[in-house]
């Protein structure tokens, strides 16, 4: 069994804070939006928690950003600039999840230090981390103090526009989080990828399995 160190400590710290934070943000966000439908805490408590956790997550985001900006590990996110190559690799990966995995075919992506993500992961994580998450943080901060940021909010089209953008991304993450957890169980064992996110080491044993 080969063990490859693919998740450096700062990434693991960032990941688990982010994971817990996002679960808490989704839960409190759900409570804020649907008070009356679900009542596991008061509106005010959920708002205050949502705000505090939100700021923790913004700080945590910079652990991720600074680590990758100032280390060579940023190569794991390097995009495939050839659309054809990227499409082919993504198609192969999608075919694996949608068909090959049922036949017991091996995962077409082979993990290495600088290629820990398959082509679908690297693209989707870049969209998430460089577009969706920053937009979510930004709109969240604007909604945290609507009066203070009223100029910017008006520039963006009004408080309802900002809120709708925030809610749309919330909806995306509410669905994504289930998919993310499920895909994380598609390693050579169900816990292999999850375990590696604690230890930092990915076990390369079986030729088949999935990404997360």
């Amino acid at each position: 069994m080969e063990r490859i160190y693919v998740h450096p400590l700062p990434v693991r710290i960032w990941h688990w804070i982010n994971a817990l934070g996002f679960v808490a943000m989704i839960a409190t966000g759900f409570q804020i939006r649907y008070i009356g439908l679900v009542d596991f805490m008061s509106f005010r408590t959920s708002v205050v928690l949502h705000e505090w956790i939100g700021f923790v997550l913004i700080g945590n985001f910079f652990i991720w950003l600074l680590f990758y900006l100032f280390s060579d590990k940023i190569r794991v996110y390097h995009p495939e600039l050839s659309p054809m190559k990227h499409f082919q690799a993504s198609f192969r990966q999608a075919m694996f999840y949608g068909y090959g995995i049922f036949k017991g075919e091996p995962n077409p992506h082979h993990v290495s230090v600088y290629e820990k993500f398959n082509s679908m992961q690297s693209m989707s994580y870049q969209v998430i981390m460089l577009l969706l998450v920053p937009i979510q943080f930004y709109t969240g901060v604007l909604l945290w103090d609507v009066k203070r940021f009223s100029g910017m909010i008006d520039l963006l089209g009004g408080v309802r526009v900002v809120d709708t953008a925030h809610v749309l991304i919330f909806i995306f993450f509410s669905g994504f989080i289930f998919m993310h957890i499920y895909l994380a169980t598609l390693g050579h064992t169900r816990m292999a990828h999850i375990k590696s996110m604690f230890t930092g080491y990915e076990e390369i044993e079986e030729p088949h399995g999935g990404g997360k």
Partner: protein
Amino acid sequence: MTGTKFHTNLIIAARIALAVAVFTVTSLAARAADSARTQLDEQCLACHSAEGLEMKLGDGGKLALQVDGAAFAKSVHSKIGCAVCHANTSFENHPPVKKKIASGREYSLGMNKVCANCHAPAVKLYEGSIHASLIRDGNSWAPSCTDCHSPHAVMAGATYNPAKGTPCSKCHDAVFTAYSGSVHGKATLACSNCHRAHDVGSPTAGDQVKNACLGCHEDAQDKHQKWLPNAKRHFDAVSCPACHSPQAKRKVDLRLYDNLAQQSVMEKAGVPQFESRARSADKKGAGLDAMALHSLLREFNRDVGDSKTTLRGRLEVSSGVEAHQLAPSTLAIRDCAKCHQQGADPFQSVTVSIVGPDGRPVRYGAQPEVLNSIISVDSLSGFYAIGGTRIKLLDWLLALAVMGGIGVPMGHMTIRWLFRKYAKKITGQADS
């Protein structure tokens, strides 16, 4: 110079001398004793204290001419005497047999100009008030100077009686009754403490009343910020009574707002458009729905060219009576869920409004669904209450995302389980 001309000049000179004498005597008398009446005043009162003295008016009504001499003697106007206000009157032309006064209202309005001779600053403030504006629009009930200030009995500092609500309660009786039982009414604050005495504005337009609240409750924002998230936003979008009059029925008023000019849109005087446009957009006559509201807004944006007219929502109480039933702060609404959940009471009643030419809002009913429609992201971009006005389409999207997020992995897992033997077989073949 002919004898006739000489005679005429003599009369004019005599009248001037009389006027000067009246003024001099009045001034001297005023200086001599505050409540002392001059000989001229006594002469006036000799007739005008007669009970039932009145004159017929053009509209068939009667103008009471009786003056209570004792009350006048005590009033602040006794210092200046009769002649200063009634300067057009002299013994030669009095009683004016030929003078016809159309109505008591016309007479009162005419006398406003006389008040301005001494009380110019107050009259100027009054001219900008909702009361003066209503009079200009032909309202026959709005008060002129003498409706609030009885001219022959006005007392310094006693114009307003907080306990009795005078003179405001003469017209706003229901409001005053509600106010009397409120926390402010019990503290016998005068109406003018919040609404001002002369430059009374429309309480539902502008910030005059809110500023009056904050004028006394200076630390209100700080206190609210300690427990209320986005407190300043709440101060902008929620009227004080909406929470501090806990029994009141609440509603949303969507106000047309000019984003470029940074002020409420005003109806053009003489060419009212709002109601006709709203009626034309509201084809079913059931109140504006989301599409109708959107097209109404488009109509106003067409007028103003580059400027962007939007709607700014404000949560307020349904009536002036309810706005005055303010309770002690311990009873104020602090439960966020009263507003921040779907179906909350304030969002069941919606109006759209523009500031009318007299400063009061002109309203048109809208259907509550305008607050939850996806179309409102554009037309109602400036108003949003979490939970209470959430967009229904997004609720469906969320349900779809969660169902997909759970359903797709479960389906995938199920197919993997169903094909497990087949997969092992193939894997085994590959391994061997």
